[in-house]
């Protein structure tokens, strides 16, 4: 079960839930499961960066999740 954390901006969609555990083996699967549970969330996640275990993963859809992975959604980070 991956542990998923929701930023404040998404908590309207999650009913003020700050985090939850979801069974998913890839980020894509996680997105599908999240959309099932919180309709509309996938669109909101489109512009976010995904951090898996503290590591921002660009274009992360196919990225594998470990059973104890932590997933965070962050604003896209730019650099100079």
């Amino acid at each position, binding site marked *: 079960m991956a542990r998923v954390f929701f930023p*404040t901006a998404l908590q309207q969609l999650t009913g003020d839930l700050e985090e939850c555990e979801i069974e998913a083996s890839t980020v894509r699967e996680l997105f599908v499961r999240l959309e099932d549970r919180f309709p509309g969330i996938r669109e909101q996640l489109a*512009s976010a960066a995904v951090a898996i275990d503290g590591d921002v993963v660009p274009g992360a859809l196919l990225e594998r999740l470990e059973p104890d992975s932590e997933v965070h959604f962050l604003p*896209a980070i730019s650099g100079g």
Partner: protein
Amino acid sequence: MTTTRTGYKWVGTRPVRHDGLDKVTGRARFGADYATAGMLHGVVLRSPHVHARILSIDLTEAAAMPGVKAIITGADLPDIPDETGTGSEGGINFRDLSRNILARDKVLYEGHPVAAVAAVTLRAAQRAAEAIEVDYEILPAVLSLEEAMEDDAPVLHDDLFTLGLDSPPDRPSNISRRRVIARGDLDAGWEEADVVVEREYTTKAVHQGYIEPHAVVAETGEDGRSTLWCSSQGHFAMRTYTTKVLGWEPGDMKVIPAEIGGGFGGKTTIYLEPLAALLSRRAGRAVKMVMTRSEVFRATGPTSGSVMRIKMGARRDGKLVAATAWMAYEAGAFPGSPIGPGVMTVLACYDIPNVLIEGYDVVLNKPKVAAYRAPGAPMAAFAAESVVDELAEELGIDPIELRLRNAVTEGVRAVYGPKYRKIGFVETLEEARDHPHYSAPLGPWQGRGVASGYWFNFGGETTATVSINEDGTAVVMSGCPDIGGTRAALAQMAAEELGIDVHRIEPVVADTHSIGYNDMTGGSRVAFAVGIAVVDASRQLIDDMCARAALIWDVPREEVEWVDGRAQSVTGAAAPLTLEELASGSGATGGPLSATVTVNPRGAGAGFSTQICDVEVDPDTGLVTVLRYTVVQDAGRAIHPDYVEGQMQGGAVQGIGWALNEEYIFDRNGVMENPGFLDYRMPVASDLPMIDTVIVEVPNPDHPYGVRGVGETGIIPPMAAVANAVYAATGKRMQDLPMSPVRVLEALSGD
């Protein structure tokens, strides 16, 4: 200067860089150094108003002038849907990008492009641009964050509705987005706090200040295929953006990277490129465009001015227990300030249980901001690190000790969510504390300040090729422009792997048609991400060469190993084969020796820096002189320590400029008053002492040599370090940047 001991032959050494000779002899070709026979010269007509509706544009007279070959306006660019694409460094809205390249119905800042002209000479183009008649209806302007956020403020974009509010807004405003980070129980946190400090801070827009103005030569053929020569932080992105804005196919455009004369984030987007390409298409000839310095200031992206309110509470023992931050960043004429990284980094150095951070992205009638070295973090650190300094004083705890008591470490959850991986923040604090600078005596009107900073760093999509020439020399090719010595660093990593002299390797920045895709040189990513690809490609080559040696010797692959640049038999059955021997005979063993690796690596190690600043303040004039400065930063591993030090020193000095004298100054009408290096006061050599550096090396486990990005973190602490030093010298807290003599003298006269 730090000498790094690595046990490596090339990694950690300081060879002369490969592109160095061209740069000390004047042979290196930067953006404006390209020319083709018969090329035209293009110029941009820019808006004199900060906010106005374009009623009409009359090109008749201009088009009839001698030598004029093409004129374009916003009507010549396709309409692009309001969609956000993923640039390599976060989202980019192509509709806004297109409207920043050429205004459509409205101009939104002084300097906003309205038309572009190509003519046989620069003069002819300038004269023609002056002859274009534009009829404007002047609109009320919004020139400050405060004005822009007022309920009844004039609105720049009728279709801009704030994202991230608790309930969706029913009318447009200048606030494009609200971002919130919250955790813990604030009430309980304030309850627990023995000392609370709350302050408001402001900073002004500042420019990256690269010395080379933007420049491009574009040649578009009759078949619609085009070539661009330009200096940028990423020629693949220039191609993506330019073709997107023009509605062209990326595959039809080749972008050849020029040497880049500084970027610092400011050359991660496009300004002239689509104009030159389209003018060239219209005129049937190559078109060169080069910005003047004034255009660079007025119409390329500075970073945001900001207003920030920070409140922090600590227990008597120094434990930070609660913090709030309210932050508003100027985005310029279109949404997209670095408020995201601003809210994420503002408290990222510390483990604070109860936090609420609220950030606003605000549009106003100023040039659209662009990335600038650790975008969004330096101003946030100015505010937060000033508050930490005040808390330390109130608590009677040494400021470095207070930071050590609250510093984030591996496994601690960052304020924005994820847990930190291997990081070296504590190590930078300890090195700073133990540095002789920290305990050196000070004289009257002198003071010392410290501050820290955090930056994420970035990986990104990367292709690298390593090829062996028939003489045993090698070529290392990537598609990332080299701004500060990355070619040397990549060659050093390849030399280390291949076991050959670093100067037998030629590192090359290849054009968009010569190598696979590469994200931009930004996010401090090149030594990390391209380094990984180069090391992987070198290892593949070594494996291949060992296999070929096994073939030649007719022994199993396991009996061959790579030692000191040669294939060696573990049994000693055959004389070693050198790189040259393997390469010159490669036809017989399967063809040329070359390996290409593509990666999109995770694990860009986060960077932390702690800096110490001594200043002296002239109580009669308010002049602040930096007497001594030390930068301590975790580089993971310094591949070429000279250029790591250079990044630390350069970042610190940009920060010192931001702290003391740099600012965009606008007149009452919003016109920039200081669009030149005379009155946009970047530090000159005589303003500064030597910048001492301490490279901390807490290796990044996700890079073969432990590299963390070093390009950006260094600019984050200086403003707070200087402000804290000014306080120590004068007893006055400076909460508004820049700390120019006028402001400091005002503060000193405040009693």
